[in-house]
């Protein structure tokens, strides 16, 4: 199943190549790949960020259930941790925005 997934992913990359070959464009190679990279990159970053934040919140809730007296300090640490994990996805968002709005426009 994994091999077919990889082959399918590589086959998707053939589509813009075919489209560009059809219209004979030589300067327009970057724009479709930039758009695809922005989308896929953001999706991977968001998914992994979700996993990381899920682990952080799970540990925090476990600790709060174990020691309800320390709940306020644990909650503060959890909020800080969540914001720091989220900032990694935000860096990817900034790169995706740069790719979309600088390279994703077809200078035709």
């Amino acid at each position, binding site marked *: 199943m994994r091999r077919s997934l990889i082959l399918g992913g590589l086959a998707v990359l053939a589509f813009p190549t075919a489209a560009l070959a059809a219209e004979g464009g030589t300067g327009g190679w970057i724009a479709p790949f930039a758009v695809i990279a922005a989308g896929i990159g953001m999706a991977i970053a968001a998914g992994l960020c979700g996993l990381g934040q899920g682990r952080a919140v799970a540990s925090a809730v476990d600790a709060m259930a174990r020691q309800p007296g320390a709940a306020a300090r644990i909650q503060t640490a959890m909020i800080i941790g969540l*914001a*720091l994990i989220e*900032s990694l996805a935000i*860096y990817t*968002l*900034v790169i995706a925005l740069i790719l979309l709005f600088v390279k994703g426009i077809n200078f035709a």
Partner: protein
Amino acid sequence: MEAIEHPPIFRLPGIPDHVTYTWLVMIILAGLTFVASRHLQLVPRGLQNFLEVVLEQFLQMIDDVMGPEGRRYLPLIATLGLFILTSNLMGLVPGLAGVTSNLNTNAACALVVFIAYHWIGVRKQGLIPYLKHFAGPVPLALKPLMFVIEIISHLARPLSLTLRLFGNMVGGHILLAVIFLLMGLDGLIGWALSGSVAGAIIGGIGGLVTIVFTVGFLYPLKILVAFLQAFIFVMLTMLYISGAIEESEHHSEQHSGHH
């Protein structure tokens, strides 16, 4: 992106939007505090009471993270915190431009933090001992490598502060701009008004769902992100300052149980 977003209601000629609204934030903050400090009373009421509560929160955060000797850095921290909070909230109001959704403002705040915590560390310990602490508690052979790694991680700090604040604010704005694009006369509202039954159903229901989603979920989320990002910026500033000044405590004083 500028085609989707609308210009703000108030523009000075020749001056970029984010600078104009920075001045507006400055006028608001300075005016508020000036009015509140007119007749200071021992038992505060009204605006003075509110501002004292805000400052108490800052003092509590400083006590938690930096210890009581960090209170001398309250002006820097409270100024940064209030400025970023007000700028974030100003970007949410439709019609006003966002100050922190421009990279320059965030870079300026991050540079202030970077220079401040290095200056505080050097002033407290002297230049050579401060630089020696960059090498860390590793054997002598690894100290040059550790020094290089520390320099890179210190350089990454203002970059991450800038991009975190910028990305959070701009992400929310782009989301809102896309929703406005969906709802416009080319999208759902246009379908609803187009006169056909299918268009009216899809446009009407879609428009209603989008309005409820935006007002009920997106705007509260953006307000939460505004407060949270200001809090995170201030918290990281305090952590960096406490990291710069605490090195001396390992050498000179006893390590008390508190911090």
